[in-house]
């Protein structure tokens, strides 16, 4: 696993300072969405090989949620963004 994460607020930090909070790809459906949609959002996860996006919580640093894009084959970290910034960017693109 990637051992160094470059936090946008704190700089280069070891992975021990973080807690992985799960897949950042699923988008929360509307409250009145069908049970099937909610079931997919809550329970069904892909297990892709290659580039993945995850939420990482910088527990013992700045305590911010980050979106880490990394490759689970080569262990390369491609990008690290604050989850707020990533969320806003997603809204602009109309993803969220």
């Amino acid at each position, binding site marked *: 696993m990637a051992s160094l994460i470059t936090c946008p*607020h*704190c*700089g*280069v*930090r*070891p992975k*021990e*300072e973080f807690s992985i909070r799960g897949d950042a790809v699923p988008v929360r459906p509307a409250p009145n969405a069908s049970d099937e949609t909610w079931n997919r959002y809550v329970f069904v996860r892909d297990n892709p090989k290659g580039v993945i996006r995850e939420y990482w919580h*910088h*527990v*013992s*640093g*700045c*305590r*911010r949620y980050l979106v880490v894009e990394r490759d689970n084959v080569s262990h390369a970290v491609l990008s690290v963004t*604050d989850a707020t910034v990533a969320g806003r960017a997603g809204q602009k693109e109309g993803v969220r």
Partner: protein
Amino acid sequence: MTISFAHRHVLEDHIIGFEMKPNAHHLSVSRRPTIVTVLAHAEAEEDVQLALDLLEDVSIRSCGPCEWLAVSQSSSPEALLRLLRAIPGSSAFDQSDGRVLMQISGPDVRRILAKCVGIDLHADVFAVGASGNMLIAHVAGNLARSGPDSFEIIVPRSYAGTVFEELKEMGREFALTAAFG
């Protein structure tokens, strides 16, 4: 009935025995520092940062976006709170009793800290005046560089004993001494 409370430092039991002369490598524990958390309200981060930089006799430690620790050895918590609450767009809370401040110094201080801190402490990366939250001996604390060969550590009070003992262990090869200062 009035109860009077005696202030007792949490590391009092860890620093016992006769007083030793400080060695070149020394860990000094502040008896009663004033430590205040400052939070900036939404979109006020830059203004608060500017106002904090103007304060005199107060050392500002960054903890992450919109959050700082203000440390003072001279003013009382009340006086510092009054000063900080006057800054528009900020909130300040006294943490003096909940945090422990330690200063570690010596020519090989970086080699001592390298055993319990996961970041690069070279002066090019972590310059004098730099600070940040990080794991210090597996405890989430704040580390600040106060000089080329001296660092200041702020840890939660309940973990101070562990961190103190760990630091002493790490500093044994350099004959690290510890005392209240």
